[in-house]
């Protein structure tokens, strides 16, 4: 093959090629091309983002594992710990929505149980294009079926999520999945650090096929006309097989039969083997010809690059192999030894007795390229002259148009297809603004996703702040303390200065907020090149936060509960955005935000304490589309209305406000509590009747429910 063809096929540029020659002191040969192609791809090496990720705030006294491993781990106390991570599967989902989304869920689950944690919750963050965009209904249908099809079958409840729409996703949908796993008292944490000369390298799980060969490097490229021709065999997920893998892997770890374990994700066996050896400062031999194959005609290169699903690589002491295999056979799976751990720090890849290559994992992994992609200093667009005074909200029919829009209507069609309760631990499901799981200790764990793309589009820095502050405040409003964060940074082409500038600004905003709220980022994933024919997605750094509450009982609801309850508006910060409505109606978009993040965090903590002091019947952050829409949403569940008198904006979005309701008897006490904590709080009305009254104008709860719940079906009749 011509050198130029080679470089194109393996997606290695001239400079990287030169570096490889330098490192090897010779030309790369045979499978070495595949190894470098995989491990130096954007997807595996984070070459465009590493320099910035290093700056992330990632520690707190609760953090047990942060980056480096398959997922981050936080300590909840009382012997309970959780591992969690979020990952994207954008490109595969655009090509084959069902399998793309399904294998995304499977992959993130493996990152969790490889560490020894039992998966207890899933959440998903989706971005679609305009409803009328080409293929869009089909893509939505496939993605939702895929996520449900995998998660429901493997038996992990999906308890939260977000579904966004914008034209910038027309050619690049985003499919991000988050998984959370629990370690109870005596569950060991297993790492991927290979060690122990003479220990065995054991291959477990599904046979290897041609699935996704060259997939990792493909996920590191923009789509263009000939993406068709580049298509690798579609990866097929088997949730049934994954369930068996979960049970068997957790069993061998509990029985202390494994020294180290790692799932085979992007770039399959290549990245697992090199990374395990690299972390342990040891070497490995791998007899590729002993890897179980689905297709006997596969070449060593195919095997190295295969991304077949539901496979694990583990290290096991020779005398424990029998016991290990017994467990896997019990679950109907195979476990075969394909190599050994050696002292010499090289990965020796063998094929039918001959050595194909022998490379130092340090050399390959630690020398992966790192780029300081050019970007511009960020100019915040905060406009102090914008004080969010009246947004001249005319009448409640405007509210109806918001409730009827695909961006504002119910997403029940989506989450109804997810099993939200398997495991019998779900205390709040997708219909609530936060997902909650009951822990064995009787405490409650919350999961909330962040990142509001319309705020990102106003200002990447502010959007970054919001992607942490918003979910943290949603948790506080329900009495939860946000503990840590995972993220999934979805951006366009990092070789473009504007894209890189937004990336850096968003990350800086997130990072400052994480420091202020003490929600370290302990795991995550970067997805660049979300771009088709030169059009990229608007910046979308989705986040997933987990939080803790001392008890699973008496968590405030999200809707008006009882006639006569007082409605209190709590203000935590000084800032406004013209918001989603302005963007939708392409009015000029402005915002300002002038609260110190440390102050915002302090008030958020105060809010949490007040909420947990009791008596709050319902709570909700003032979110997309502003206060009027938020209140309308609060009438849905129980069809209880409210009489509201409020002179401030109806549709502008505050940074930040929270609505609380409490009984008349308790409101004096609650207001005093709030004010003692120096939180701005005013009674804006009371729960009453069968309609939402806004300064005299009214809309019946029946109409609100009808338009909110039936609009999706009208927008997507084919679904």
């Amino acid at each position, binding site marked *: 093959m011509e050198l130029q063809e080679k470089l194109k096929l393996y997606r290695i540029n001239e400079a990287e090629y030169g570096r490889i020659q330098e490192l090897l002191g010779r030309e790369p040969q045979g499978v070495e091309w595949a190894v470098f192609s995989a491990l130096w791809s954007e997807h595996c090496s984070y070459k465009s983002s590493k320099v910035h990720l290093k700056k992330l705030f990632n520690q707190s006294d609760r953090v047990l594992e942060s980056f480096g491993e398959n997922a981050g781990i936080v300590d909840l106390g009382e012997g309970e710990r959780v591992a969690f991570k979020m990952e994207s599967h954008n490109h595969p989902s655009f090509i*084959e929505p069902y399998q793309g989304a399904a294998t995304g869920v499977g992959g993130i689950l493996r990152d969790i149980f490889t560490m020894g944690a039992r998966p207890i919750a899933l959440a998903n963050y989706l971005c679609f294009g305009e409803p009328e965009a080409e293929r869009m209904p089909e893509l939505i249908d496939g993605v939702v079926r895929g996520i449900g099809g995998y998660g429901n079958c493997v038996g992990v409840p999906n308890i939260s999520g977000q579904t966004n729409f914008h034209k910038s996703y027309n050619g690049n949908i985003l499919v991000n999945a988050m998984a959370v796993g629990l370690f109870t008292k005596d569950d060991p944490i297993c790492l991927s650090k290979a060690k122990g000369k003479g220990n065995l390298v054991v291959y477990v799980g599904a046979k290897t*096929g041609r699935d996704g060969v060259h997939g990792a490097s493909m996920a590191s490229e923009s789509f263009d006309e000939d993406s068709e021709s580049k298509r690798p065999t*579609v990866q097929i997920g*088997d949730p049934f097989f994954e369930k068996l893998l979960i049970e068997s892997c957790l069993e061998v770890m509990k029985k202390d039969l494994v020294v180290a374990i790692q799932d085979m994700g992007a770039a399959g066996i290549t990245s697992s083997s090199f990374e395990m050896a690299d972390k342990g400062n040891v070497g490995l031999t791998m007899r590729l010809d002993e890897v179980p194959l689905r297709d006997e005609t596969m070449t060593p290169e195919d095997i190295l690059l295969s991304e077949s699903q539901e496979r694990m690589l583990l290290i096991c002491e020779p005398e424990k192999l029998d016991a290990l295999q017994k467990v896997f056979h019990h679950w109907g799976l195979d476990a075969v030894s394909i190599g050994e751990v050696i002292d010499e720090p090289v990965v020796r890849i063998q094929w039918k007795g001959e050595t194909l290559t022998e490379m130092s994992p340090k050399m390959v992994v630690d020398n992966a390229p790192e780029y300081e992609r050019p970007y511009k200093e960020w100019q915040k667009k905060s406009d102090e002259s914008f004080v969010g005074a009246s947004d001249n909200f005319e009448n409640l029919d405007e509210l109806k148009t918001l409730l009827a829009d695909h961006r504002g209507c119910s997403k029940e069609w989506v989450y109804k297809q997810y099993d939200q309760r398997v495991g019998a631990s779900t205390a709040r499901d997708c219909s609530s603004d936060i997902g909650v799981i009951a822990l064995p200790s009787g405490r409650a764990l919350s999961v909330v996703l962040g990142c509001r793309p319309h705020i990102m589009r106003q200002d990447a820095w502010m959007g970054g702040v919001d992607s942490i502050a918003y979910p943290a405040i949603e948790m506080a409003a329900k009495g939860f303390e946000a503990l840590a964060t995972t993220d999934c940074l979805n951006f366009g082409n990092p070789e473009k200065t504007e894209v890189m500038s937004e990336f850096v600004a968003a990350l800086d905003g997130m990072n400052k907020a994480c420091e202020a709220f003490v929600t370290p980022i302990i795991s995550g994933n970067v997805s660049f090149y979300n771009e088709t024919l030169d059009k990229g997605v608007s910046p979308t750094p989705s986040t997933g936060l987990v939080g803790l509450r001392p008890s699973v009982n008496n968590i405030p609801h999200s809707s008006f509960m009882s006639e006569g309850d007082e409605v209190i508006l709590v203000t935590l910060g000084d800032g406004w955005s013209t918001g989603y409505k302005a963007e939708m109606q392409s009015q000029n978009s402005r915002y300002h935000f002038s609260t110190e993040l440390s102050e915002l965090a302090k008030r958020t903590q105060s809010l949490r304490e007040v909420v947990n002091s009791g008596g709050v019947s319902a709570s909700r952050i003032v979110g997309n589309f502003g206060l009027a829409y938020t209140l309308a949403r609060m009438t849905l569940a129980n069809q209880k209305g409210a009489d509201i008198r409020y002179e401030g904006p109806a549709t502008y979005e505050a940074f930040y406000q929270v609505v609380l309701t409490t009984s008349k008897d308790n409101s004096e006490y609650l207001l005093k509590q709030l004010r003692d904590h120096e939180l701005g709080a005013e009674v804006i009305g009371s729960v009453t009747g069968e309609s939402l009254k806004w300064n005299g104008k009214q809309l019946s709860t029946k109409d609100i429910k009808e338009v909110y719940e039936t609009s999706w079906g009208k927008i997507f009749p084919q679904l």
Partner: protein
Amino acid sequence: MKFGLKILPKPEVLDTQGRAVQSTLERHGFALSDCHVGRYIVFEVQNDDPAKAKEMATAMAEKGLYNPLIESYELEKL
């Protein structure tokens, strides 16, 4: 005119159902191999000209009855 459409996973694509069905039947003492599970679709086309009808049936298969990324099909006249 009536047609039957046999749809099977492409050989290079993992057939999750076939794998499960085969291993289960084997565990229950059946000697089989190379088991694959797909879909069978029958439908009637309003056109008496065999050539035309066949053309329409093929168009339907191509348009939406099978997924070319992961499946292959065979059309039979009934």
